[in-house]
Structures are given as structure tokens and as C-alpha cells.
């Protein structure tokens, strides 16, 4: 075998071999969709599309499944909504923050500071989610519970949920901190990759550095910014462990119309739900539901990358490099 490798390869065979390996990746994805979809099928067949809709208390529905109910009835809306909320808020804040920070790193940071920030960013990007979860549950959650949530607020919703500190607020904050470095990493690289001639062209016209950055570099880097947002969204969607630790894990859909209070309400996104119910997989109804959650996540990340791709198209025309 080794001997064969040492021999010069005919180009054709090499190409086929490498190509085959590359296609293996595709195969895995197909397998994944198929397997997950197959497992998820029963619950969808039973609930139809109203599976996504609101109705009843999702926790008790799952509860009955866990305790062996053969009943597939499930209305996953609170979980979906929880996912949308955490992801949406985190990405919205995160993107703005990351963009500013990236511009700072590339343009304004003094060399010494830049030399510090860059590794810091990569470190942050690498901190395992379980550590964020640990800090969240042992530090932030008690803090919010004891110092931010007021008795009045607790009373106002006592018939619906408990405000224990584990809340949308904490979840969003930590999630933001988790995804910002990922975005910064991508955006910074893109900003650096903007052809120097463009920025110099702008600066040479007597445009100040911020404007040059904003009107030319950032503009040229939009595809990367979108890519960053997509990746970050995917991460936020999929974050399970940390959220299961700090989100309060209640199948409740916080209502923005409750005013600021809704930030303090607990919830449980899809991914966290999967983690927590993974141990009851042997109950057929639970199994099917859990895989249904997974399928939902899978498809949303599929659509994400598709959406990102489409969003980049119009920019090609003006010479953005994608």
C-alpha cells in the first residue's frame, strides 16, 4: 500500500480518489437529513404543520410522552419562538458590536492594543460553551434573580411562570458574548483583505478614516459580513448546553408585549430541549419529537446558508469579491 503511494500517481486516479473523498462529505449530509427525517416523520404525520403552532403546554405534552404516552400530540411553538428570540436578539446586538469592534481593530486600534485584542478575540472564540454556561448559572442567573427581578414582577406573572433569574436576558447576553468573536474573526479578515488601493483611493481624496472605512472597506466586505452573520446565527441556533443551563428550561414563550419584563421570563430553545430530553429517547413519541426538533434546526441552518448565498449575489455586480 505505502509502496503504491510512493509510486507517482496517474493524475486521473488521484483526481478520482480526492474527488471521492470530497463527495463523502456530501454523502454524510444526505445521510444526516435522511436519518433525522425518518426518525422525525411520525410526529409530523400525527401533528401535521400545526406541530409548529401554539397550543397547550409543551412541557406537559412532552411529559406525557416521557411517561410513555403513545400520544404524539405536540405544539412546539414556545420552543421555536424561544429559539427565534434568543438567536434573533443575540445576532442583532452581536452583529453591530462585532462590526464596530472589527473596524476598531483594523483601523483605529493603536498597534500595542491591536496586538492584544487579536489573540483575545481568538481566545474568546475558543472558550467552550460549557464554561459560559457554568459562569452563567453560578454567577449571572443568581445575580439577575436576586438583584434585577423585583417581587412585583414575580407576582405579576406568578400564575404563568417563575422569574428565577434564568431568563431570556441572561441567555441572550451570554449568547451574544459567544458569537461576537466568531463574527469579528471573519469581518476583520475581510476588512484586511479589501484591496489596499481602494482604501488609499478614498483616503487620498481627503476622506477621514472612519468614512473611508465605512463607505469603501465595509461596503466591499459586505459579503463577508453576511457570511459572518450566517455562521453566527447557525451557532446561536445550535447552542444547546449553555442555553439548557441558563435559559430556565421552561417551555414558555416570552411575550414582547409584556414590556421589558419579557426579558426576565424563562424559556427553552429547541437545541436545549434536545439535550434535556435526549435521555428519554427510548419513548417513541419523545424520540420522534426530539428528532423533529433536530430536523427543524438542520433545515434552518440549510436555509441560512442558502439565504446567505442569495443575499451575496447582487453585490457581485459591483465587484465585491465573494
Amino acid at each position, binding site marked *: 500500500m505505502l509502496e503504491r503511494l510512493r509510486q507517482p500517481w496517474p493524475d486521473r486516479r488521484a483526481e478520482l480518489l480526492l474527488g471521492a473523498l470530497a463527495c463523502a462529505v456530501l454523502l454524510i449530509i444526505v445521510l444526516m437529513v435522511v436519518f433525522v427525517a425518518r426518525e422525525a416523520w411520525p410526529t409530523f404525520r400525527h401533528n401535521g404543520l400545526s406541530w409548529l403552532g401554539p397550543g397547550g403546554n409543551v*412541557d406537559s405534552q412532552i411529559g406525557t410522552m*416521557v*411517561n410513555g404516552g403513545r400520544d404524539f400530540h405536540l405544539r412546539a411553538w414556545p420552543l421555536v419562538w424561544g429559539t427565534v428570540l434568543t438567536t434573533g436578539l443575540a445576532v442583532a446586538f452581536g452583529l453591530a458590536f462585532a462590526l464596530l469592534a472589527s473596524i476598531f481593530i483594523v483601523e483605529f486600534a493603536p498597534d500595542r492594543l491591536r496586538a492584544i485584542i487579536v489573540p483575545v478575540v481568538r481566545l474568546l472564540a475558543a472558550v467552550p460553551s460549557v464554561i459560559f454556561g457554568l459562569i452563567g448559572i453560578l454567577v449571572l442567573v443568581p445575580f439577575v434573580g436576586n438583584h434585577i427581578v423585583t*417581587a412585583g414582577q414575580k407576582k405579576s406573572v*406568578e400564575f404563568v411562570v417563575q422569574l*428565577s433569574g434564568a431568563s431570556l436576558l441572561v441567555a441572550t447576553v451570554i449568547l451574544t458574548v459567544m458569537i461576537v468573536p466568531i463574527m469579528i474573526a471573519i469581518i476583520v479578515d475581510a476588512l484586511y483583505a479589501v484591496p489596499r488601493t481602494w482604501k488609499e483611493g478614498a483616503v487620498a481624496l481627503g476622506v477621514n478614516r472612519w468614512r473611508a472605512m465605512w463607505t469603501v472597506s465595509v461596503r466591499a466586505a459586505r459579503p463577508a459580513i453576511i457570511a459572518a452573520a450566517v455562521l453566527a446565527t447557525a451557532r446561536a441556533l445550535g447552542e444547546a448546553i449553555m442555553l*439548557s443551563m441558563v435559559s430556565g*428550561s421552561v417551555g414558555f414563550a416570552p411575550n414582547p408585549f409584556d414590556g421589558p419584563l419579557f426579558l426576565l421570563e424563562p424559556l427553552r430553545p429547541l437545541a436545549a430541549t434536545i439535550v434535556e430530553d435526549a435521555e*428519554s429517547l427510548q419513548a417513541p413519541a419523545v424520540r420522534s419529537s426530539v428528532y423533529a426538533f433536530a430536523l427543524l434546526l438542520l433545515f434552518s441552518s440549510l436555509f441560512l446558508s442558502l439565504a446567505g448565498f442569495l443575499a451575496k449575489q447582487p453585490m457581485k455586480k459591483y465587484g465585491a469579491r465573494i
Partner: protein
Amino acid sequence: QATPVITMSGSTSVAPLATLLAKAYVKSHPGKVKFKLAQGGSDVGVADVAAGRVTIGNSSRDPKSSDPSGIFFNKIARDAICLVTNPGNPVANLSQETIQSIFAGDVRDWSQVPGAGITGTIDLVGRTAASGTQDAFQKIFMGSKTVTSSIAAKASNGLVQQAVQSDKNAIGYVSLDFIGGVTPAGYNGVACNLRNAKSGEYGGVRNFWMVTRGRATGVVQSFIAWVQNNAKAQAIVGKHWVPLK
């Protein structure tokens, strides 16, 4: 031939006990058998043993209608479930009715709870439906009533303990090992501690099970028999849990 291996998986609450027992058994029966222990939750244990992935599944919950057929639950010990409140709000005693009305969501303010030190909303902390503790609590304490859906359902004893610890208005229920940092409330006039549980006065006890595929045979059988009957084994159980006898 090679020494047989007993593989266990299942309830994380049973795991510590199972480990201790296994150690002692190996010591007293050298070379007779080896043990491997995985955790993952009661349901995992039941499922694994049913599928034959392990020889023993540990469960901290009683058999369910939904459990796969052909498995056999061997009771090995019992464990007390304590109602716990925040140290800032010690409650000496709770009657079953009080508990039921609190957790059913009928009573929502400490002022309505006899013996409560404080007033204000009651923060209910419970367990997710998957957990054996939840199952036991429902059976033992709630009887016909069901736990209100507004309860903050935690995934583990630790979370409940932590939630109650950090929230003055909270009340929850945990297995006896988890009363550190919180104050256990008496139940029907009996304090929740190991002694009362052993003596049988304390009512709120659940069972620990070792589940086998069909009736246990061979080394497994002898191990479980040892656990159930051997004095030393029960002594080990007695350290933190409630022995059968």
C-alpha cells in the same frame, strides 16, 4: 475463562450507590466479576437493559406502563425526597394538603402557608417530567393532584438545589443528598433526614432499582442477591440511603 463483566448504565442518582456497591462486591468476591458503569438517566438505563446493551440498568423511578416488556425491576434501596426551602425562609413542617395546594398552584403566597417565615410569591421549583424524582414526587406527595404547569421544571436535583439556594421565595424537592445549602422542611410532622427515613417514620421515600433483562441469572443474580440481602451491602447503603431492611 475471562472473568464476566457486569455493565451498568442509568440513573445518575443511583450511580454513586452502584459504584460503592460494585467496589465492595469486587473486594469481597475477588476475581469473580468485573464492573463497568455508565450514567445517563433512569430512562437510559431502562432502555439500555431492555435492548440488552447493558446487563443492569439503574433506575431511580418505579416501573412505568410504557416500559419495554421483558425487563425485571429489582429493588435495591430506598431514598428520601425532601421538600426544601431557602435558609432565609425555614419552614418547620408541611402537611400533605399544604404541599399539594402549593404545588398544584392553589396557594401562591407564603403568607397563606402556615409556619412560613416570610410573605410574598411562592417560587415553585420542580423537576422535568423525565426525572425519577419528579415521578416519585408526583406519586408520593401529590397523589391525585397534578403539579401546576407554571412550575420552573429543572433538569436535575442540582439545579433545584441551586435555584432554591439562591431564591428566598423558592420551594422545591430534591433527593436527600442534595439538601446542602437549603433547609429541608418536615413532612407530616416528621423531619426529613436519614434517620427518620431509615426508621420508616418519614413517608417521602422512593425506590432505587436495578433493572435486569428477564429475571437475573448467574453472576448478575448473585450480585443483586448480595446487594439485597448481605448485611455489609445494606450497611453501605445505609451511609447515605435507606436500606431495604
